[in-house]
């Protein structure tokens, strides 16, 4: 916006500055993660698999893993999910980045476990959380957001929740932009983040920022609603394509079902376990 003042008189210079500006804007919006979520979904081999099968399989697998206590059995579950991630084609770095967010929590749980119940339980809890988190991350990384939403709708999640989830997801990025602009403005005025709970000015700034985000977004929500109405929105999500379970979906579901059943059976001692 400010290029008028910097490049007074030079059209080409102004153009260059404008391009710089748009490039910067792209950078910024990427930094705030517009496409982050669905970025790897399309590249993955599991992208076009039925979202209902993916969701149901993951839920079942995670439930099975929650019941496991034996390290040897947990090892096979972990190996299965790591192999599946490898096959899916999702970059390992992407999964690792997301896993790193949960890692301090796992470390804390495992460390306290180490001192209260011994190294075996500590390893078991770390493996159990890791396996479940990886299974969930795999599902998220291979399923586009709208597919997840349709699966939820199919599983009879109330329409109010589905509509709210859809709108909220959309608005998160709108508000992130808003927040990013305000963060930049805050920073340029010399705001550093504050040191402790006693920092009165820092808290005043944070409260006012959040308050302002609500005020701005309230106005924006009104506009968005009007825009939706004029496009014929009636409160129901309609999609062009129909969900369909194909052979490969059945294979994937069956793989998950049989493995989960086997894991639980060996944990319960029904299947003789040789290790």
């Amino acid at each position: 916006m400010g290029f008028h003042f910097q490049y007074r008189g030079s059209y080409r210079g102004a153009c260059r500055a404008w391009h710089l500006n748009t490039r910067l804007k792209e950078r910024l919006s990427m930094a705030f993660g517009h496409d982050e979520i669905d970025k790897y979904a399309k590249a993955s081999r599991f992208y076009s698999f039925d979202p209902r099968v993916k969701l149901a399989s993951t839920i079942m697998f995670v439930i099975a893993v929650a019941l496991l206590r034996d390290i040897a059995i947990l090892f096979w579950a972990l190996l299965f999910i790591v192999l599946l991630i490898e096959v899916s084609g999702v970059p390992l770095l992407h999964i690792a980045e997301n896993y790193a967010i949960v890692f301090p929590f796992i470390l804390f749980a495992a460390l306290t476990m180490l001192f209260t119940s011994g190294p075996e339980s500590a390893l078991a809890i770390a493996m159990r959380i890791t396996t479940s988190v990886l299974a969930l991350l795999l599902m998220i990384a291979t399923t586009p957001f709208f597919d997840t939403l349709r699966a939820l709708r199919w599983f009879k999640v109330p329409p109010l929740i589905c509509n709210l989830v859809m709108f909220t997801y959309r608005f998160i990025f709108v508000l992130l932009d808003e927040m990013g602009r305000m963060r930049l403005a805050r920073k340029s005025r010399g705001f550093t983040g504050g040191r402790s709970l006693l920092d009165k000015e820092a808290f005043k700034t944070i409260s006012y920022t959040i308050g302002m985000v609500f005020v701005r977004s309230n106005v924006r929500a009104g506009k968005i609603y009007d825009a939706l109405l004029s496009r014929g929105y009636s409160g129901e999500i309609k999609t062009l394509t129909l969900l369909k379970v194909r052979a490969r979906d059945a294979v994937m579901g069956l793989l998950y079902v049989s493995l989960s059943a086997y894991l639980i059976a060996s944990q319960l001692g029904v299947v003789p376990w040789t290790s």
Partner: protein
Amino acid sequence: MHIPDGLMDPTVLVIGWLIALPVVAYAIYKVSKTIDEKAVPFMAVLAAGIFIAQMLNFPVGGGTTGHLIGATLACILLGFYGSVVVMTVILVIQCLVFGDGGLTALGLNLLNMAVIAPIATAAVLWALKGRRQYTATFTASWLAVFLAATACALQLAFSYDLSGGDYGIEGVIVIPSMMAWHALIGIGEGIITTGIVAFLSKVSPESLKMQIGRKDEVDTGGKEVAA
């Protein structure tokens, strides 16, 4: 405080679902019956706002930071049922889109942050009957955070005892540390929520009147809060 999968004893997970689901279902029923369609985008904006407010860290001291839960803010802006629904939506998105909090543990996360926290807020607001706006907001936010964290600690301790040391974290360690830590974080939540309410009542008092799910109270509730 988002519990991942695999940490809790399966029995505790089932209990969490059994308590949380009826409350959430009733809140959804109540809200879908009373709101008009136009309110859905507004609720979603609030949900997105709280989602983002949760990402904004505030300083606690010693180089560490905490972040908002936002249940109190939702409860003040939308009323009890509205806040349960909004917190549910936030937790569902965090679980299914960002992998924050587990699938099987969603029941417990719902119980702590979408049921206990709004109930604590509503109880404080009800006890003070709309008087002493800022004191009520601060107390409600602190209590909501503190009780939610305490519930989480108790669930961890209960898992540990129930499974004989295979799940959860031992109570002697987790209960005092979670309670002390979140007593501090609660102060931050209290200051910020009070600040937001003060800001909104100055800049945009009409946004404090969106009492979804308890339409009969709209007029009086709005006036008292804004006064």
